[in-house]
């Protein structure tokens, strides 16, 4: 029953070991799995990890970049290739957490964590899931939807994401109780491509407004064709919490999160700091 650690040079072997053992968990940066072990989660009996060098790569491919699942938040923030993701990467934890927490791990984050995943959602990223010896590329949104059933039995190799339309098109705002390094009361990531002064193809994602990061399609619809000014965003603000059931936790209540969401969304859309 006690704990064992299995380390594999190839990610595929790690995925097989994970699939074969109900008590196995994949260890990335440690911020979730080691925490669970420290807190006495005896359902974890095997730690699976991989030294596959592909996990550590950030690679540019035209306007797309590929980030290995083992890349840390610090590495994302420091790399020129992923500079557009620096803000959400920097918003995760303090420096020591950012030196450990990985891109892959963040995909499994539950509220009030998952800032980086929200950014990837807004940018319509895809996830490379390890299946047997191969990889399957899945839209992040679908990956998150499947999450509830299949976690934590999946191994992620990395994510691919397209650079935003323009520097100003990608925005990220986070509201915390302590600064810096607080967990999200709410965080919002948005990709707002501009066509002739109007938003076209908006993608907006929230953190801490549900059990895990989520897209907010009501807001996206309301932004379609809108101008980013007081009157143009009125519909989006009205739809800011439509159908959302945010959690009550130590950071904030259900009520407060619903109250504050339109205010944070407004600041993001109008570019107010």
């Amino acid at each position, binding site marked *: 029953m006690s704990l064992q650690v299995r380390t594999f040079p190839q990610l595929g072997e790690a995925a097989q070991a994970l699939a074969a053992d109900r008590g196995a968990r994949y260890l990335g*940066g440690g911020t979730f799995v*080691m*925490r669970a072990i*420290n*807190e006495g989660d005896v359902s974890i009996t095997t730690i699976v990890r991989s030294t596959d060098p592909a996990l550590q790569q950030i690679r540019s491919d035209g306007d797309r970049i590929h980030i290995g699942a083992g890349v840390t938040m610090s590495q994302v923030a420091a790399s020129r290739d992923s500079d557009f993701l620096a803000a959400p990467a920097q918003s995760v934890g*303090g*420096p020591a957490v950012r030196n450990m927490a990985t891109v892959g791990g963040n995909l499994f984050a539950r509220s009030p964590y998952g800032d980086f995943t929200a950014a990837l959602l807004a940018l319509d990223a895809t996830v490379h899931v390890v299946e047997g010896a191969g990889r399957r590329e899945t839209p992040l949104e679908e990956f998150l939807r499947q999450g509830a059933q299949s976690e934590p039995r999946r191994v992620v190799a990395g994510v691919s994401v397209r650079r935003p339309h323009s520097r100003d098109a990608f925005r990220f705002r986070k509201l915390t109780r302590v600064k810096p390094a607080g967990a999200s009361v709410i965080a919002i990531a948005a990709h707002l491509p501009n066509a002739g002064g109007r938003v076209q193809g908006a993608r907006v994602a929230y953190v801490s407004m549900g059990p895990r990061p989520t897209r907010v399609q009501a807001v996206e619809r309301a932004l379609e064709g809108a101008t980013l000014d007081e009157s143009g965003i009125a519909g989006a603000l009205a739809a800011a919490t439509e159908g959302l059931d945010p959690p009550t936790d130590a950071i904030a209540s259900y009520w407060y999160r619903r109250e504050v969401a339109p205010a944070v969304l407004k600041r993001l859309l109008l570019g107010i700091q």
Partner: protein
Amino acid sequence: MARKPIQFRLNGKDEAVFVEEGQNLLDALRRQVGDTSPKYGCGQGTCGACTVLVDGEPRLSCLMLAESAEGASIETTAGLAGAELHPLQRAFLDGFAAQCGYCTSGMLMSAKALLDRNPSPTREQVVDAISGNICRCTGYEPIIDAILDAAARGAGRRSA
């Protein structure tokens, strides 16, 4: 429980110890090596009391698998002072930046990581550097002042 041998450098000295499978680095440093300078505060990655430097970068030793330290160079507060106190220690002592003392070790390590890389930080950079370290006594101001004071005394240039 199964034990694994690992080797690493701790404060410039080679260490070879057996660690338990799944044991975290904090526990291994404190129990197997006997360096009790990093502290347990939460086991969750929220308090920073267990902060150590791994190859010069701050890490939370409570969330790090001990065996992943294989071959690494680790620095802890126990190795900070030479014949004299490190300027950060001096500044913490003079500036009343250690009250109950329990967060101090992690604060010093986070501050050292900052000054090693950036010998003349702004106040904002200091705040960010210790943003993962919780102090419940001081209200942080004396700690921030002490780190700036140590920087002014040349702490970063000394150890860089």
